[in-house]
């Protein structure tokens, strides 16, 4: 079986500014990968390019998902194929309720698989289950998507969406930043509950502390658009203790 995600020599730019400068990454089913690295090194660019963000132009290399080259397909089809990105900065959508949004997304996924739309009553049952996972009551569903949410609520909402959509590959972009200990626990609990042998996670983080809760199999360091080091979870401890300077040779800009 082909790996779930196979990225070969990926190069991506914004306008004519190169950001990813040849990234190779293979993620198999059942694995948890962590990507760490200094600010501005291209972590968000990498996960957004995998999701199909239109701001990034792929200038070289390839992204294969489930054996299929997805470089040219639009973001909605990547999502329907099973890719989910938990945004570093989730977007506020005033005027659209969380309930409507989640059901629309869920039904689009079903349609893409040739299934009928789920009727609203059954969907409420499904939601109830998922809400428990993030320790939320049903009130949140009546609020507009992320509008006026606190930083922590936004991140929790990303996990709720992930729980409903059940992706094969979840990309979590700094889902831990800005969270207090309690919110961090809820996010980690959600992730661990959804972990299965046939799905995989790529967790972008700045801090060791998330990795105390979500244990990575493989840790990568991204610096200036390239993966410069790969190791086991002990690499994360080392980065926590020593910073990135010993790897990149330049002090981190914050």
């Amino acid at each position, binding site marked *: 079986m082909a790996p779930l995600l196979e990225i070969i020599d990926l190069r991506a730019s914004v306008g004519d500014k190169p950001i990813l400068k040849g990234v190779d990454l293979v993620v198999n089913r059942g694995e948890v990968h962590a990507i760490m690295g200094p600010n501005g090194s291209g972590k968000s660019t990498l996960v957004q390019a995998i999701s199909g963000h239109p701001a990034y132009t792929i200038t070289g290399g390839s992204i294969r998902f489930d054996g299929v080259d997805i470089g040219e397909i639009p973001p909605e089809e*990547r*999502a329907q194929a099973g890719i989910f990105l938990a945004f570093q900065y989730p977007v506020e959508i005033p005027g659209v309720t969380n309930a409507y949004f989640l059901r629309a997304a869920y039904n689009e996924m079903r349609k893409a698989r040739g299934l009928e739309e789920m009727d609203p009553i059954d969907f409420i049952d499904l939601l109830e289950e998922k809400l428990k996972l993030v320790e939320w009551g049903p009130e949140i569903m009546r609020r507009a998507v992320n509008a006026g949410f606190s930083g922590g609520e936004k991140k929790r909402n990303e996990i709720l969406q992930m729980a409903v959509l059940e992706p094969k590959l979840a990309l979590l972009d700094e889902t831990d930043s800005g969270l207090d200990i309690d919110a961090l626990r809820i996010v980690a609990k959600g992730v661990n509950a959804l972990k299965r042998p046939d799905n995989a996670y790529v967790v972008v983080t700045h801090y060791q502390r998330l990795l105390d809760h979500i244990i990575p199999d493989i840790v990568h360091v991204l610096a200036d658009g390239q993966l410069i080091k790969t190791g086991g979870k002990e690499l994360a401890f080392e980065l926590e203790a020593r910073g990135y300077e010993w790897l990149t040779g330049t002090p981190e800009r914050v």
Partner: protein
Amino acid sequence: MIEHYLREYEVAAADGGATAPGWFRSLQADAIELFRASGFPGPKDEEWRFTPIAPLVRATFRPAGSATPVGLTDLEPFLFGRLDWPRLVLVDGRFSPELSQLPSIAGLAIANLASVVKSGDGDLASDLAEASGRTVTPFASLNAALGMDGTVLRLASDSVMEEPVHLVHVTTPGSDGTVTHPRLLVVIGERARAQVIESYVGLGSEGCYWTNVVCDVRLSRGAWVEHTRIQRESESAYHTGVTEIRQEADSHYRSFSFAIGGAIARHDLRSRLGGSGAEALLYGLYFGRGDQLVDNHTTIFHDQPDCRSWEVYKGILTDRAHGVFNGKIIVQPIAQKTDAKQTNRALLLSDTAKIDTKPQLEIFADDVKCTHGATVGNLDPLARFYLTSRGIPDRVAGELLTYAFAAEVLNEISAEPVRTVLDRLIHGRLASDRLEAHDAR
């Protein structure tokens, strides 16, 4: 072509005029003189600078003739709530007793203007004479000179209307080249509460006719009014309207102005906060496609201290549609503690759609809070990516975001049945725009 209308006035004054009382004929005579002096507004006119009305001015519209028969079933799609809710219907400018539903409600007096003029309601003469709406634009003067019918609604002090009253103006198919000048007068007594819906409906989708309306609304001390104006004329029609609101102390007025029809549609809304503690909330939502021109001019007069105005207008424009928004707020020197906020936002869904927008704050008092903000742009690409990244197709995401943009204002309508109908109307409009865009590809 003002001669055309001057002549029409002469003809009307010569035959029909004889039956109207003298005071009414003299109001008409004053109005036609105003119109004769002003003529139609032109591009040099500051208030009409962005509003090319040449096609309307060049054409010569004749008075609407005998109406094509209209049944209740034709009307039903445009009504709200229950069929027994009160309504007064004008078909091609004339009162239709058959289609109207005028139950007796304590404190409410409602009748068509022509019959009130004939029967001589005690206050009508002075109310109409005083109504400044007729002088606001040349179109309003023309309305006062040529108007034949309309609605007079009075609600006595302390009366509460449980259901909205709907004033329906229907233009029938086959009314090409005709004009109607409906005249509305709404007077709400002290502490009385009313909901008024005002609709303009073109029954044939393609008719090129003209509706030229003037509406005066008065709120006595402590009155509460929710006023919804729904303009859904044919997309080939012309619509010009003036709404003049006058509020006494501690009154609360809330308006929702919805515009989706008309080749050229211009609405002037003027709200005068004439007593301390008065509050006006003005919401607007308009749509333009094809070559539609949609113009909203609003003026809020803060004449007295401690008044509050809150205004949000939103437009959705596509194809070559042209929107105009001009929001004036005038705060008089004595109007201290004024709290005024104006927001206007337009969504331009094509490269060729455009909007001219101009806030105009004239503040002569020093202890006030006045803000305004305008945004013009396309759908947020980040929001679009967010939705598509959840598996929602780009086209659906665009529609959803457009709808959400509109829904923020739509949700301000408190009457649920009205909200539901407009909600469906918006969904229909967005879906048909999508189909047309698809065909064009």
